[in-house]
């Protein structure tokens, strides 16, 4: 059937925001008479929820949300991979905190968004430090609630991604215990509703290549990126400058190596009982027709 | 002279003219046949038989709590009898034109005095004509200057007069009045009695008046019924010509008979 409106879910940082500001996808789809609608989310899990029911067609999340989604039988596919959050995602504490390392988190309350990529970071960092996950107290909070809880010392540490990490940096000069780039070799993902991807594969590929263009532009114009992010999301400029400068821009097809990495994450979640059943990542990987 | 032309003539006579007391052949207004009414296991009315011809002025008397209000409610179709049956005269099938002046004023608190009286003209007149007629009758009950006030600022007797005006302003076929003048002083009371009689003579409706004033009953009614212990204890014609003179020997004698029956 004819596609009239194309809905893209995005968060307050990274490539899709640049693409929106540059209007690259709109331009690429304009000759087909498709209008583009941008829908903002504060975290990955609600975006997967919206993808599942087809409220949005495509979206970009961290590594964990699609695993939770797939375990729940969500109607989603991996369409492409993006670089990981890397420097832009961390576990951190207030500078006055006695906690000096990940090992000190034992018995402490750590704020984290359930089923987010930060959740994965926390799990992996603890594993690396040799602390069983059940020896800390995870406090599952949305970024908004966690921000308030961190401000009033209701949680001892906070694990979150940009721009929330960058905002916390500008506000508290926190002590960083671990960053994604130090702990994990993972990606973030461009997801699509399964039915949508089947019905409109060319729209998905067009979008991915448009994002690729935006990534090229962003890599070369980092000075303008922060301003663009600030303008679209309303996040304070100083925080977006920090976030923009440590973001890796790019979009690439999903390789077997990426699938293996993501599968390892899924297995870890299953072992810890974070998801109720094992999943096979390769089942949910979408390949563009003709490839 | 037919009844209709009689009415026409009468309406031009200022003071109440004489009225024939001989029971001419008239249609029936309504009839109670063995009507009983119980609330729970308390029997209030028990086998009431009452046949009332159209145009009659009937007064109902009885001790407090004997069931007078209940009788009127049955007549107006507001309650169902527990036994027996009621029949209405031909014109009265749907008894749409039965007007009821309740024992309480029942004025609409959200309508001005004149609007409350206009309620009595529902389906008869509306707009400016209704207002004019309501104002006219308010003048007759002595409340023309209170037309635009809320009912809540009226005195007890004033409220009762507004309710009376509302009952009289339409052209009822049966008018049931439950102690309409109970809260009025002697003078206002006599004025209202005269008003009631005048309008009854002009419009020739069937009137059923519950009252606790025996003098009032014999002064106004063609027939007086006394209720006692759920039954009709006395059913008395008042064969006195109109206009009647209050305090006349004839009326006093009838009053005595009724009082004897009530108190005996």
């Amino acid at each position, binding site marked *: 059937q004819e596609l009239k409106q194309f809905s893209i879910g995005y968060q307050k940082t990274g490539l899709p925001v640049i693409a929106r500001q540059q209007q690259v996808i709109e331009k690429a789809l304009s000759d087909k008479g498709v209008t583009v609608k941008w829908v903002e989310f504060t975290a990955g899990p609600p975006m997967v929820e919206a993808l599942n*029911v087809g409220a949005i067609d495509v979206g970009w999340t961290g590594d964990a949300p699609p695993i939770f989604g797939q375990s*729940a039988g969500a109607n989603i596919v991996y369409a492409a991979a993006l670089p990981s959050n890397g420097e832009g995602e961390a576990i951190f504490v207030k500078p006055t905190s006695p906690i000096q390392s990940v090992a000190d988190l034992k018995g402490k309350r750590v704020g984290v968004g359930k089923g987010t990529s930060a959740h994965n970071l926390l799990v992996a960092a603890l594993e690396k430090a040799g602390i069983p996950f059940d020896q800390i107290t995870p406090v599952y909070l949305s970024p*908004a*609630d966690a921000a308030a809880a961190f401000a*009033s010392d209701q949680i001892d540490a906070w694990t979150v991604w940009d721009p929330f990490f960058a905002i916390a940096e500008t506000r508290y000069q926190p002590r960083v215990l671990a960053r994604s780039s130090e702990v994990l070799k993972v990606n973030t993902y461009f997801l699509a509703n399964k039915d949508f991807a089947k019905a409109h594969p060319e729209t998905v590929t067009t979008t991915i290549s448009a994002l690729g263009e935006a990534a090229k532009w962003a890599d070369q114009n980092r000075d303008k990126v922060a301003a663009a992010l600030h303008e679209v999301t309303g996040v304070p400029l100083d925080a977006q400058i920090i976030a923009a400068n440590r973001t890796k821009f790019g979009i690439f097809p999903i390789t077997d190596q990426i699938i293996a990495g993501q599968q390892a994450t899924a297995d870890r979640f299953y072992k810890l009982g974070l998801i109720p059943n094992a999943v096979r990542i390769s089942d949910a990987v979408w390949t563009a027709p003709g490839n | 002279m037919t009844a209709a032309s009689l009415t026409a003539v009468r309406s031009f006579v200022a003071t109440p003219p004489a009225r024939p007391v001989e029971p001419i052949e008239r249609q029936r207004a309504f009839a109670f046949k063995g009507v009983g009414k119980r609330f729970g296991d308390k029997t209030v009315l028990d086998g009431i038989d009452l046949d009332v011809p159209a145009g009659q002025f009937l007064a109902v008397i009885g001790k407090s709590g004997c069931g007078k209000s209940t009788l009127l409610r049955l007549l107006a179709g507001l309650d169902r009898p527990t036994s027996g049956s009621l029949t209405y005269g031909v014109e009265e099938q749907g008894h749409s034109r039965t007007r009821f002046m309740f024992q309480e004023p029942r004025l609409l608190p959200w309508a001005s005095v004149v609007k409350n009286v206009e309620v009595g003209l529902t389906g008869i007149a509306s707009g400016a004509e209704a207002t004019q007629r309501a104002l006219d009758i308010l003048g007759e009950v002595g409340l023309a200057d209170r037309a635009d006030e809320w009912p809540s600022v009226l005195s007890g007797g004033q409220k009762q007069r507004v309710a009376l005006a509302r009952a009289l302003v339409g052209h009822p076929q049966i008018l049931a009045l439950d102690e309409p003048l109970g809260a009025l002083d002697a003078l206002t009371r006599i004025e209202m009695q005269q008003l009631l009689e005048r309008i009854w003579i002009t419009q020739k409706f069937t009137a059923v008046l519950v009252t606790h004033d025996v003098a009032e009953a014999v002064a106004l009614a063609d027939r007086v019924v006394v209720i006692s212990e759920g039954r009709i204890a006395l059913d008395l014609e008042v064969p006195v010509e109109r206009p009647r003179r209050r305090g006349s020997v004839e009326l006093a004698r009838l009053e005595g008979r009724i009082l004897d029956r009530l108190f005996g």
Partner: protein
Amino acid sequence: MSFGARLRSNGIGWLLPALVIAGWEIASRAGVMPANVLPAPSAVAEAFWRLTLSGELIRNIGVSTARALAGFAVGGSIGFALGLANGLSTLSRGLTDTTLQMIRNIPHLALIPLVILWFGIDEEAKLFLVALGVFFPIYVNTLLGIQSVDPQLVEMGRVYGMDRRALFFRVILPGALPAIFVGLRYALGIMWLTLIVAETISASSGLGYMAMQAREFLLIDVVVLSILIYALLGKLADSLARLLERLSLGWHPAFQNG
């Protein structure tokens, strides 16, 4: 009304829900209604059975009910006390009513960020939100009830030498009771509503948590189940309030002749 007629008139009320559920089940089985949009009633029943067997459901209901009642007790009693005080004393009303009316206009769920700052993310925060949500319906209706007691009756009580205590217990409170019950029933509704939102703030037990978790795992049957349980609990609370109402308002025409 005869027994038969009552049965019939109640029967007609259950007709619509029964039809809806039957239609829903048929649509689900026929595949017209995909399970990831709305699971079949039988699937919901299954989820109910599964969670009951595992004990999870009972535990979560228990936790939520305890939270609800604690918040209700705190907010309701403060609201009732202040409503009484402000209904009876002009000084108290003058001092506090303007402030309370100003606060009343703040939707209490908008306070969540501040509540986290002040009370943290634990039980206190949930208790405070429920208490605040419950406070206003009780306060406003108690005040309203007292102010709308028939002034003729109060005048009568005064003239008959009732002291403040007697006037309160024999005239004002019985007269205010119908309005207080209206407030009570609103407050019970708000109580559950608040709890649903409050239990999404970092709870690890309770019905709200169960629903939230089911939402994350896209377990729509559990989502629907939790909605039904909320409805049931709400119904239960409401029925209790109605029973109390019926017992204490026996004189009221609306409660005579069933």
